[in-house]
């Protein structure tokens, strides 16, 4: 367990009712959840873990109530969030064409994708790209797997690329909160251990990590806290 510092980000739910279609994820829930270190968001399949993460990102809005990050609405803190969605191939836009594009282009797209118009990469852009590759342990040489199409990478390599995408737009890793949706789902034991070590390294740099999993076994001991979505409420266990 990691101690919660005074500057640790705190997520506050104020009488929140959140739904995905007709399925209620949480109903009239009020609580404070510190997010320092690593937080496991667990719950059975279909409990609404992904919907909850999307609510933190401001993509899904609560039916009622307010979600606050350090006392302000989560939408205002959008720049602090990094996000790694589930690697489901049936999502709109996640096409065969996208899998044919080199992994480096996926990371670049996450890094520069919010800029409009024509412009050339600056020295700072190149430095930022190299920094994010180094942060997640992706080699940047000419023979690196990052130059291969995303569809040709192993599960572990893909997850590193996805993590690099999540971190790429973040300005300040110390204040950042990285949301990972089922990051361990498609990994073998070695891949899972490597990714967890990478996440532990991130938290030691001050980044808060929230990850979802329906499989709590083996993870609970590594987490700063466990938050469970169950029976339309959020159970926080520190």
């Amino acid at each position, binding site marked *: 367990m990691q101690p919660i510092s005074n500057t640790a980000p705190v997520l506050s739910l104020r009488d929140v009712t959140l739904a995905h279609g007709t399925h209620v994820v949480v109903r009239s829930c009020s609580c404070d959840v510190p997010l320092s270190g690593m937080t496991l968001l667990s719950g059975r399949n279909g409990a609404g873990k992904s919907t909850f993460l*999307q609510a933190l*990102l401001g*993509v899904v809005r609560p039916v009622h109530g307010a979600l606050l990050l350090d006392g302000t609405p989560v939408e205002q803190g*959008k720049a602090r*969030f990094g*996000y*790694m*969605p589930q690697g489901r191939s*049936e*999502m*709109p*836009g*996640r*096409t*065969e*064409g*996208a899998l*044919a*594009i*080199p992994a*480096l*282009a*996926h990371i670049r*797209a*996450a890094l*520069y*994708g*919010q*800029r*409009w*118009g*024509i412009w050339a990469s600056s020295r700072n852009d190149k430095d930022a790209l190299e920094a994010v590759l180094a942060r997640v342990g992706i080699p940047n040489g000419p023979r690196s797997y990052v130059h*291969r*199409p995303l569809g*040709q990478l192993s599960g572990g390599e893909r997850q590193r690329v996805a993590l690099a*995408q*999540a971190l790429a*737009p973040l300005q300040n890793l110390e204040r950042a909160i990285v949301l990972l949706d089922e990051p361990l789902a498609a990994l073998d034991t070695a891949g899972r251990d490597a990714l967890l070590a990478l996440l532990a390294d991130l938290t030691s740099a001050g980044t808060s990590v929230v990850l979802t999993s329906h499989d709590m076994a083996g993870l609970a001991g590594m987490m700063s806290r466990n938050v469970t979505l169950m029976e339309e409420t959020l159970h926080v266990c520190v």
Partner: protein
Amino acid sequence: MFAFEFMRHAALGCVLVSLLAGLVGWFLLLRGQAFAAHSLTHVGFSGAAGAVWLGCSPLMGMGAFSLIAGLVLGYERQQGRNPLNRDGVTGLVLSASLGLGMLFLHLSNGASSMVTTLLFGDVLGLSWASLQVLIGVTLLCCAALAVFGRPLLFASLNPEMALARGVPVRGLSVALMLVSALACAVCSEIAGALLSFSLMVGPAATALRLGLSPLWGMVSSVVMALALSLGGLALSWQTDVPVPFWIGAGALALYLAAGGVMRFVGLRVRAP
């Protein structure tokens, strides 16, 4: 062959359309929207038939119908998460517009020569007025892609992440379909409603199969589209076989050759 004015017009038309088809086609293929591109060209045919019935310019009718269909497809693409629904909507728009096209042709008493022109294109009959429209549309579409190309690439590669970062994913989808609608309308002028699809899809599919980065993918897609259209024009001049045949056959040949190249490269990488 460039001693004749109609051939100079045809060559310039091919260059403009190749630029447009190569760029727009690459984004459409990247996003898995080849069927939408195919449908837009056919919808354009119905619009052109309607324009013939009303006595207007076919290109204007083609553009108007394609734009409306592009708006519907771009919006519907973001509804729900089942890809089958998107294709279903595209199919419905296509069948409804083709039915409307048949009605327009019936009302305009057949006009069979016009139908043939709309379906198969008439690159050798490009007037200077049509070329001016082509130049305007090409510049407009290229400028639009230059403005929203990067956010569109992000939204195409990872829509969930882009949405989370505040990128207007739905707006970009609609914008791309509107640009595609215009591109399809002008491509149909060159290769016809039936085969303009091959100029958009063939080079882009080949570029994606080669596993190139976005920049090189778009550049190679444009270069291949140029080779297909100008090569088709030259071969048509030599053999008297219609241009669309050479474009369609060439697109397939390029795609198969890219598969061979990738297999060869794969073998070399695996070899000790």
